[in-house]
């Protein structure tokens, strides 16, 4: 048994169970939650090192051989995603200590949070499509409850929409699995890759399109994103931050996985469609953000436009662009989580995130203003921050495959992102506070909020000043993704 491969699942599961048993004591639960998240980060780093040294790892659960049993696989892409998950989990679990009310913590916030992480990690590690569906459901179940927890009216309304769209997405996912199984008699991803490539082009196209819609809903691409800006601004910031940072990326991960491993027979059709979808996603997301006047709603719309960049990297389908997409995913997880956490800190100090009621934050809290600028400018792609390198790598890759039209869209959307970020800056930080503002608590930002914000900002700066490390990892993961022979060999135990 390869323990490093199973540990990212065992740690959150164990933490969730332990938190349930400790439900009587708030202090013990909090300690367990932060400790469990730190453990997940450590397990992720261990896994990444193991994959780095020994190549792709695979475990057949219960020793049932490959196409029949459940396979857990970790290649570099999965391992990088697990590390990013662990990092965000740790940051948000610390932030949650200052953000959540006693009521929510008593009603099982901590166990649910770790079950959510379990679902996310499971989705990154599984090598079987049906198992991926099960992990999605684990993740969704936890996210439904986290979204509705507290029972405020906007939350309940948001939960109805979120649940309906995700229910439909799961149904379409299962439909695709039924059709795939009927045609190919297997749902193991590596086995499918071998069997689909042996069939004439187009045999798997119907399933590919169904999966594109199913994962597209989860990732929030055009025109399937409507649930996202309708729901992400309603729960407490700690919940919204982990949703914004991780959940849509699970959809992107699933898209990257199936469209590099299984559905590669008809690249002009499937990936050409992805390029169009990506361009429309970027444009609608950023235009939607321009019309919003609440920080969290602006940020929610920006998740959509940034998802477009990631799927664009996949759609252009070369080693360089897929590598850029992976770099983009990691950068965006860090930056977007941080921006949501900062909006939480603003809400804590001022009692609102509405841009019209805010103002004067630069005068009162210059440090918070600086901490906002780092992820905001990184999101817009200002050098030398992480977002610049992500966009630069993507554009460089696009030049090589002559994707000039998508380059123009990407650059224009970058400019509009800068517009949105400067709008938040000008309205919330720079302009004097409007007369008759709601007031709210005028206290300082608590330490438990500041620590994760600073840590995430440092990582953004770190990626910005030393992009080589992550670029190298991303390039090698893309190399593995676009040459899936090693993956199939690790899972099936023989050369395809």
């Amino acid at each position, binding site marked *: 048994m390869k323990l490093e491969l199973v540990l990212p699942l065992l740690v959150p599961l164990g933490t969730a169970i332990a938190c349930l048993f400790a439900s009587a004591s708030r202090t013990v639960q909090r300690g367990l939650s932060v400790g469990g998240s730190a453990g997940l980060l450590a397990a992720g780093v261990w896994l990444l090192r193991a994959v780095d040294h020994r190549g792709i790892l695979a475990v057949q659960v219960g020793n049932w051989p490959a196409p029949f049993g459940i396979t857990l696989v970790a290649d570099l892409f999965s391992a990088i995603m697990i590390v990013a998950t662990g990092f965000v989990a740790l940051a948000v679990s610390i932030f949650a200590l200052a953000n959540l009310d006693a009521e929510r913590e008593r009603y099982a916030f901590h166990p649910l949070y770790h079950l959510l992480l379990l679902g996310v990690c499971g989705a990154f590690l599984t090598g079987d499509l049906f198992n991926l569906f099960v992990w999605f459901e684990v993740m969704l179940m936890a996210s439904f409850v986290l979204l*509705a927890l507290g029972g405020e009216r906007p939350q*309940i309304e948001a939960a*109805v929409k979120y649940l309906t769209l995700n*229910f439909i997405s799961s149904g379409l996912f299962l*439909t695709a699995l039924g059709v795939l199984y*009927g045609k190919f008699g297997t749902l193991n991803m590596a086995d499918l890759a071998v069997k689909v490539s042996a069939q004439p082009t187009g045999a798997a196209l119907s399933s590919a399109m169904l999966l594109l819609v199913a994962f597209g809903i989860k990732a929030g691409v055009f025109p399937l994103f409507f649930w996202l800006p309708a729901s992400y601004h309603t729960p407490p910031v700690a919940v919204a931050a982990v949703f914004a940072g991780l959940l849509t990326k699970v959809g992107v991960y699933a898209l990257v996985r199936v469209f590099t491993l299984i559905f590669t027979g008809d690249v002009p059709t499937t990936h050409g469609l992805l390029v169009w979808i990506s361009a429309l996603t970027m444009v609608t997301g950023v235009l939607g953000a321009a019309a919003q006047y609440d920080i969290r709603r602006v940020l929610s719309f920006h998740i959509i436009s940034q998802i477009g960049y990631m799927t664009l990297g996949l759609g252009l389908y070369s080693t360089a662009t897929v590598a850029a997409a992976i770099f983009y995913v990691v950068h965006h997880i860090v930056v977007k989580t941080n921006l949501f956490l900062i909006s939480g800190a603003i809400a804590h100090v001022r009692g609102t995130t509405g841009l019209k009621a805010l103002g004067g934050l630069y005068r009162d809290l210059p440090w918070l203003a600086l901490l906002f600028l780092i992820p905001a400018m990184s999101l817009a792609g200002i050098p030398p921050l992480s977002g610049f390198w992500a966009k630069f790598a993507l554009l460089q890759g696009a030049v090589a495959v002559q994707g000039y039209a998508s380059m123009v869209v990407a650059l224009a959307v970058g400019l509009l992102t800068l517009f949105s970020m400067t709008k938040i800056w000008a309205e919330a930080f720079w302009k004097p506070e409007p007369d008759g503002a709601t007031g709210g608590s005028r206290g300082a930002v608590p330490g438990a909020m500041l620590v994760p914000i600073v840590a995430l900002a440092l990582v953004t700066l770190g990626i910005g000043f030393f992009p080589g490390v992550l670029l190298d990892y991303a390039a090698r993961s893309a190399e593995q993704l676009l040459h899936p022979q090693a993956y199939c060999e690790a899972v099936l135990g023989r050369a395809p």
Partner: protein
Amino acid sequence: METTLAIVIGGLYAISFYLMLRRSLVKLILGLMLFSQAVNLLIFTAAGLQRGQPPIIPPGASAVPTPHADPLPQALILTAIVIGFAMLAFTLALARRAHSGLKTDDLDELRRGEQP
């Protein structure tokens, strides 16, 4: 048998999408319910139907007799039914909560929380 089931599945998909497109919360839930059942039937049918051929090794033999029903899709459906049941239970609880706050069955009323 496949043809009959295919028509039934198509009908169930159509009905469930029609119900989901209505404005009523109750019809939405009925639609979701039918949708998950339609999907289960689709997996069952797409994987191939075998009548009266359980995948059980008879006493004395060493392998399953060759036309036999594939047990894997049935295992998949069983899992999907359990998950669908849990989702449905949560949906019903949520709908009850939404209804007690909204005092209406009209989904368009949910827009109010979305105003900027």
